């Protein structure tokens, strides 16, 4: 006999689909929610419902947005630089640094032939037109440094050549506070190749 009420079982099954959540954690969460006052479950359900009602993607840069345009695209004071990133989370990470004041473009992925992702599966439709619209002076390629991320940057570098906009690649190398002796050789080699003149 399965002593688990179907509603609880259903919740646990749904929770276990979240990344990093196993069957047991999902069950523990479900029981925890059940143990809380019912107002918690109600506000959780409301928050989930509102997620799709209020959060979508910016029609210009494809970052997270509550309206047709995201807060960055609505901000008239932004510089005419466009930072290309893989995911909407990357935008949040860069915004939190407080050291970038340009625009973004979210690809929602990287080129990955093995997974069937070609340029047509990335949010690149009308990208060149957008660069003209915002009169961009620079495109920063900030995809990750693994094989697919690098290949995507190389591809975009080629593709954007004819636009005449300056294209740069985000720097790679030694992390802040990092000790050279603990770095792997390929990171160290890149850091050496990417050295700059002292100011």
């Amino acid at each position, binding site marked *: 006999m399965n002593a688990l009420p179907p509603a609880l079982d259903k919740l646990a099954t749904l929770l276990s689909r979240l990344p990093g959540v196993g069957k047991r954690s999902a069950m523990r969460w479900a029981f925890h929610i059940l143990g809380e006052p019912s107002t918690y479950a109600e506000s959780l359900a409301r928050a989930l419902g509102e997620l799709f009602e209020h959060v979508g993607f910016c029609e210009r840069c494809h970052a997270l947005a509550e309206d047709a345009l995201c807060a960055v695209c609505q901000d008239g004071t932004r510089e005419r630089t466009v930072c290309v990133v893989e995911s909407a989370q990357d935008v949040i990470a860069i915004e939190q640094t407080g050291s970038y004041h340009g625009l973004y473009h979210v690809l929602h992925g990287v080129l*990955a*032939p093995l997974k069937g992702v070609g340029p047509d599966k990335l949010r690149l439709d009308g990208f060149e037109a957008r660069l003209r619209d915002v009169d961009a002076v620079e495109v920063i390629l900030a995809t990750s440094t693994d094989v697919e991320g690098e*290949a995507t940057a190389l*591809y975009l570098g080629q593709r954007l050549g004819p636009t005449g906009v300056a294209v740069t690649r985000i720097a790679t190398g030694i992390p802040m506070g990092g000790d050279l002796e603990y770095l*792997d050789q*390929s990171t160290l080699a890149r850091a050496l190749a990417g050295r700059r003149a002292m100011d």
Partner: protein
Amino acid sequence: MHLVAFSAEHFRNLAPFRLEPHRRFNILEGRNGQGKTNLLEAVYLLSAFRSFRDGRNRELVAFGQERATVFAEIVKKGVSRTVEVAITPKGKRVALDGKAITSLPDELAHLSVVLFGPDDLVLTKEGPQLRRRFLDRAVYAVSPEYVNELRAYGVALKNRNRLLRQAQEGRLDPAVIAAFEKELVAHGARVMLRRLQFLESYRPHFVRVFSEITGGELAGGITYRGLGKASLADATVADLEARYRAVLDEARQTDLRRGFTSVGPHTHDLGFTIGGRPARTYASQGQHRAFVLALKIAELHRIHDAIGDYPVFLLDDVSSELDEERNAQLMRYLDSAGGQVFITTTDRRWIHLTGDTAVWRVAEGRVSAEVG
């Protein structure tokens, strides 16, 4: 470095065991199919976190069990550490000193293991895959970060191959292929550089050991074979990239037709020579065996150079395959060098060691210490 304690649960056909290996020689004796090689495989797994046999993770776990664990306490330069590998339905989990680790290369250096098994005995005779695997394993025993470079090259290669097949279906995007080719060339050049650098430091050991084994009658040689006939000695990363780029450009039409990448380090080989002639065609049976014996012993020396200690040496039933003279040379070498050794054999009479020895009987998956 050596194992002071070694245990496993639900690993292949082995009954749960815990043993305290001898710090010099451990002879694992038993009939065929009893589990001797599985014991060596368990030691190997603690070093490389993967098996030396082909196959799925699942096969490492005893029939009817969910997970297997292998554990050892290792003493390296007087410091004791523990390493545990769990094979679960979700994959392998590795813990060093009880802490889960995620970054492989940094930690690969905790335990160096060299395996000498039946595959090595045919290194001079069989196709290039075995030699590439021998080379790649030898390189990452001294340069653990090589794992990442080889992996990145593999990702770029698989992606390019997929693009070549898409092109055959009429979906050719030259800009996308070009992007992945740049990655292929960049990572391929690093892989080649590592292999070449390794060979430079390994070759003197090999030449010396081969000469000792054969009484100096003929010189043994090893060359790297790839990217055409011209020598790659002293090539820099930039040279290698340029050379690889050139052969890749030349091969592109062929590759597009065939749907796979026909040039690059995944196709390269080692050239073995005796007295300047190819070992594969000119070596006698005895010379073939001397060659592989020298390859392995030189590997131990090279690792000793790198880490200041002998690796754990696993010998999988090789004595019965070597002739009497080569076997005696191997035993003499093992006696004179340091380090912990595990040897499997069906018959202990093959093993003539004067050093301290423990004998473990392996029968029907059960390991027991021989008393006396």
